[in-house]
């Protein structure tokens, strides 16, 4: 087993006199691992993800990357949120380029190269000069993903990024995301309450209790499904059984049996 990379160490979070995250939450994520936080809405899994991004502070404990405590938010931990967060005042290409705005280490030529690369990667090259209000929700979400990828974050924090999309676009983006993660070797925390999405994407699923958040179960999906994910996998017996089993765990945890 590889060394831990992104580590939640003894985390607790209280807000307004209530526990948002039950003390204490511990989790070690390996480099290039795709971890899905699965749990009921409002259970505190998003709060945990935001803490990893430096956008929220734990009441106790610490979060480290490669042994170093994470501080304020920065480019090393990129985020994609649930809402369509492409900046409306920038075109698709300008949005993606914005991801590199604070990369002073890249030459303009290199930036242009990367811009083209990421526009291609998410299939938006034909819409480069279009404003986000002219493209579909799925495209806007791809803009946001390309922008975060262009920034060069090692770690991606994704909060139900496909939540508002129709089933078909969702499937397409899931495939793309999994491919990008394998190809560019990203470490991903992906928050969702969709069991099928979780099984399809994850190397490992963490099933959360309802609020306050506690990790009830861990499922090593990678060991069962392998790294390669295809559409056909969705119809396979293994996938189906895994999905049913996890759905049962989720149902039970919504009733909050430890």
């Amino acid at each position, binding site marked *: 087993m590889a060394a831990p990379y992104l580590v939640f160490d003894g985390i607790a979070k209280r807000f307004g006199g209530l526990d948002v995250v039950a003390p204490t939450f511990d989790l070690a994520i390996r480099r290039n691992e795709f971890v899905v936080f699965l749990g009921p809405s409002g259970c505190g899994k998003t709060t945990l993800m935001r803490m990893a991004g430096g956008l929220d502070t734990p009441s106790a404990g610490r979060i480290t990357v490669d042994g170093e405590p994470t501080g304020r938010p920065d480019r090393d931990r990129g985020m994609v949120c649930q809402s369509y967060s492409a900046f409306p005042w920038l075109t698709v290409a300008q949005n993606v380029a914005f991801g590199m705005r604070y990369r002073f280490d890249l030459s303009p030529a290199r930036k242009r190269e990367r811009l083209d690369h990421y526009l291609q990667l998410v299939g938006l090259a034909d819409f480069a000069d279009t404003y986000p209000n002219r493209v579909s929700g799925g495209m806007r979400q791809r803009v946001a993903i390309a922008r*975060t990828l262009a920034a060069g974050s090692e770690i991606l924090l994704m909060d139900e990024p496909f939540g508002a999309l129709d089933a078909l676009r969702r499937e397409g983006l899931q495939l793309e995301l999994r491919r990008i993660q394998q190809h560019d070797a990203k470490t991903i925390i992906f928050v969702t309450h969709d069991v099928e999405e979780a099984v399809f994407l994850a190397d490992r699923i963490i099933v959360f209790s309802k609020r306050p958040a506690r990790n009830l179960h861990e499922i090593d999906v990678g060991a069962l499904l392998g790294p390669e994910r295809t559409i056909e996998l969705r119809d396979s017996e293994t996938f189906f059984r895994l999905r049913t089993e996890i759905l049962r765990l989720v149902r039970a945890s919504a009733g909050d049996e430890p």
Partner: protein
Amino acid sequence: MGRPVARAAMSRPSRRRTPSRLFAFRADLPRRTSAAIAIGSSLTMLALWELAVRAGWVNGTFLPPPSIVLATLWRMVQDQHLLWHAGISTLRVWGAFTLAVVLAVPIGMLMGGFRSIGAALEPMVDFIRYLPVPALVPLSIIWFGVGEDTKIFLLWLGTFFQLVLLVADDMRRVPQDYVDIAYTLGARPAQMLTDVAFRAMLPSLFDNLRVTLGWCWTYLIIAEIVAADSGLGFVIWAARRYMNTAEVMAGVVTIGLIGLVTDQLLRRLHKRLFRYL
């Protein structure tokens, strides 16, 4: 045989839909129809006004008909330097307004972006905001005399404190997601403010500026009535002294026209600048 019947049946609902569109809730209206209605209703109002005076329903000394107001307006342009007065007033408005904007935008952004600064300034701003500008005229004259300074100060007073709170609210309405995204893309707080928050709030800021510019004209008249020998407020107030109602109304109409033109220009500019909305 069946076809023409079907076509007739299909064309009927579309024919019936046209008139009802005018009063369908939130229904689209063609630009031309909309413009025709606007012009038509304005002309009707003017005609009624004209008729009311000519028919003797109201006394023409107190309410001169539009034809006389218009004629007076033209005469004032030729003989009384009305355009020069209008120019002076416009300069005063824009001077004071610019001063208010330059100060209100950064201060408002800080108030909306940082709770501590908001907490520190809000009570003061709220207090001054509710002081009626005319109540501060005596103080203003004691401080600045009766020159341009007083006028600029009064206009500034009337707009700055309103604007600063509007800007702060615009800033508060910038989606948190944009802020979070900016930070996780490596922006420092100052960069987040200028590159993301400011850009995100710009359309609503522009709208607020357009509205407060209108208020500025209200205070201008007060300032020019108090102490001035130029400007539209002076013209109106001087005409009042001789009970020259037509000149008073011509002055008022001039302000209205300037307001209308400025507002339309700013609306067009808004559309051009924020095509992405």
